[in-house]
C-alpha cells in the first residue's frame, strides 16, 4: 500500500501511544463500584465470612504458627474477597463485548494490550479495597493475633497474588457470554476456595480429596500467603501450582483475546 508522506502526523501527548491514562482506571473503578452486586460480594461477604468463621470460640484462639487460627481465617477470607474482586473485574470484558464496547474501542488508538492493563489495574484497585476491608474489620474484633509484620506481609501477598485471578477473570470473560458469567464465577470460585482450603483446612479432607485439592488453582496461592503466619516448611509444589495455573489462565486469556481482536 502506498503511504505518501502527508501532513497527517499525530499530535504529541504524554498518552499519545494508545497507552493507559490514569483517568481510565479511575472511571473503570467507578463502574465497578456502581455494580451493587459486585460490591456486595467483594466488599461485604468476605468480611461477613470472617465474622462467621473467624470468631468461633471453639478454635479461634488456638495457636497457628506465629499467631492464632482467627488470623489464619482472616488471611483466607481476605484471599477469597480479593480473588472474587479481581475475577469480577476481569470478567467485565464479557459484558463489554456484548455491549459492543470492545468494538467501539477498536476504532480508537487504545492498544488492545493497554485495555487489558486497564482491566487488570482497576480489578486490583477493587481487590485492594476488599483486602483492606477484611483486615480492618478483623482488626476491629481484636481476635486475630499475629506479629505486626505478618499483618502487613500477608495483606500485600494476598493482594499481589490475586492478580492471578484477574487473568482468570479475563479468560472467563472472553470465553463466556455475559448473561451468566457472574453466576458461573461465583460458583467456580466457591469450588476453588474449598479446593484451596480457604474454608475448611485441607487436613480435614479425606486423603483422596486432599490429593485432588492440591491441583486446584487456589491451593498454591493459599499456602503461600499463609506461610508467613504458619511457618510450615516451604514447598515448591505451592509455587508449581501457582505458576502452572498462572500460565494456563494467561494463555487462555491471550488466546481468547487474540481471537476477539483479530481483524476478520
Amino acid at each position, binding site marked *: 500500500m502506498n503511504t*505518501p508522506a*502527508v501532513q497527517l502526523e499525530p499530535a504529541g501527548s504524554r498518552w499519545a501511544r494508545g497507552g493507559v491514562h490514569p483517568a*481510565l482506571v479511575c*472511571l473503570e473503578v*467507578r*463502574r465497578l463500584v456502581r455494580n451493587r452486586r459486585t460490591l456486595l460480594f467483594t466488599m461485604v461477604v468476605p468480611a461477613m465470612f470472617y465474622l462467621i468463621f473467624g470468631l468461633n470460640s471453639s478454635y479461634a484462639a488456638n495457636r497457628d504458627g506465629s499467631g492464632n487460627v482467627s488470623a489464619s481465617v482472616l488471611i483466607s477470607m481476605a484471599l477469597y474477597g480479593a480473588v472474587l474482586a479481581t475475577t469480577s473485574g476481569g470478567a467485565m470484558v464479557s459484558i463489554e463485548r456484548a*455491549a459492543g464496547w470492545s468494538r467501539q474501542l477498536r476504532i480508537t488508538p487504545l492498544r488492545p494490550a493497554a485495555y487489558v492493563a486497564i482491566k487488570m489495574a482497576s480489578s486490583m484497585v477493587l481487590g485492594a479495597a476488599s483486602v483492606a476491608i477484611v483486615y480492618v474489620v478483623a482488626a476491629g474484633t481484636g481476635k486475630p493475633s499475629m506479629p505486626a509484620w505478618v499483618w502487613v506481609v500477608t495483606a500485600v501477598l494476598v493482594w499481589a497474588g490475586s492478580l492471578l485471578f484477574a487473568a482468570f477473570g479475563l479468560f472467563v470473560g472472553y470465553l463466556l457470554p455475559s448473561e451468566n458469567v457472574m453466576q458461573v464465577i461465583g460458583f467456580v470460585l466457591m469450588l476453588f476456595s474449598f479446593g484451596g482450603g480457604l474454608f475448611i483446612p485441607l487436613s480435614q479432607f479425606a486423603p483422596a480429596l486432599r490429593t485432588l485439592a492440591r491441583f486446584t488453582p487456589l491451593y498454591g496461592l493459599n499456602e503461600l500467603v499463609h506461610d508467613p503466619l504458619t511457618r510450615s516448611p516451604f514447598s515448591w509444589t505451592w509455587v508449581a501450582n501457582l505458576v502452572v495455573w498462572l500460565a494456563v489462565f494467561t494463555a487462555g486469556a491471550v488466546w481468547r483475546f487474540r481471537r476477539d481482536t483479530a481483524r476478520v
Partner: protein
Amino acid sequence: MARFVDRAARARVRGAVTSSTPVPGGCPPAVELRDVHKHFGQVAAVAGVSLDVQPGEVVAYLGPNGAGKTTTIDMILGLARPSSGTVAVFGLDPTVAVRRGLVSALMQGGGLLKDLTVAETLQYTSHLFPSTRPVAEVMQRAGIVAIADRRVGRCSGGEQQRLRFAMALLPDPKLLLLDEPTQGMDVEARRGFWAAIRQDASAGRTIVFATHYLEEADAYADRIVLLRKGRIVADGTAAEVKAMAAGRTVRATLPGADRAELTRLLGTDVEVRGDTIIVHTPNADDVARKLLNETAAFDLEITARGLEDAFVALTAEPTDLPLADVTYGGGAQ
C-alpha cells in the same frame, strides 16, 4: 447516463494520480478503495468496489439491507480486512489512520457502557486519543449538555445516538463515518440530528454515511453512491442518480408471452402476469417501439415511477442486464 461514465472516468483519473504520484502539498483521497472484495465463506458481501472520496465531500452510501454498506465501512475503519483489493484512508492503512485520530465513526447500535454517565463516557473516550476537542464543546454540538449526568442506560435511543455522535466528534476527525445514523429515530430527532451533521460538514469535514433512506441521501449528501449486492450501481449527485433512477414502467397486453424470449428481445427483465407484461426500464421508448413493432403486444401504457420505486428498481434483485452499463460507469471495475 453518459454523465456517469464521464464521472467515472474522472474518478479513475483522480485515482490514478493519487495512487501513483502523491500531489505535492495536496491531500490524498479521504477514502480510496481499489477493487475491494470481501467474502464471508461463500458469500461475497462486497464484490469489487472502487471508490474515491475527496476531502470535504459528503457522500451517502445508499443501498438496501445486505448491500454491503456496513462491511465496506468496517474495512475503511480497519475492523475488517478485505479479501482482496486495497483500502487506504488519507493514503494510510486504516488502522494507522484510526490510531492517529484521523477517522472516527458512529456505528450502528451498541458501543456504549450503560453504567457510565453521558459526560463520563466522553471523558473516557477523550482519554483514549492523543488530543481531542473539549468534552463540553462536543456535548454542546451534539445537543446533550442537558443530559450530561444521566446514566447511558437511562438515555433514549435518540439520546444515545447523539452521544455516539459526540464521541465521534471528540478526536476532531478529518473523516467521519456514519453507519445508519438515524435508524430508530423519530422524525423530529432525525431532523435535529441532520442539522447538527450538516453544520459540522460545512466546517469542511469529510463525511460518509450509510443509509437506506433515500430522502436522507437526497437532502444531505453532495454525492450518492448506490450499492447493490456488493457492487456500486450508481455514483453521482442526487440529481444525477434520480435522473438515472427515474425510469418508466411499460405495461402491455400480450397473450401467451414467453418471458425468456421477451427478455432476450428487449434486453431487460420482463415481468409476466397472465396476459399482462410489465417492464421497468430507463429506455421506455425503445421498449415500447420493439414491443409494438416486433411482437403482438397491444394496449401499451407508459407510466413514470416515483423516486422510491426507482430506488427499488435500481437496487432490486434481477436487474443485471439493464444496469450493466451503469455498473461499469460507477467505477466498480
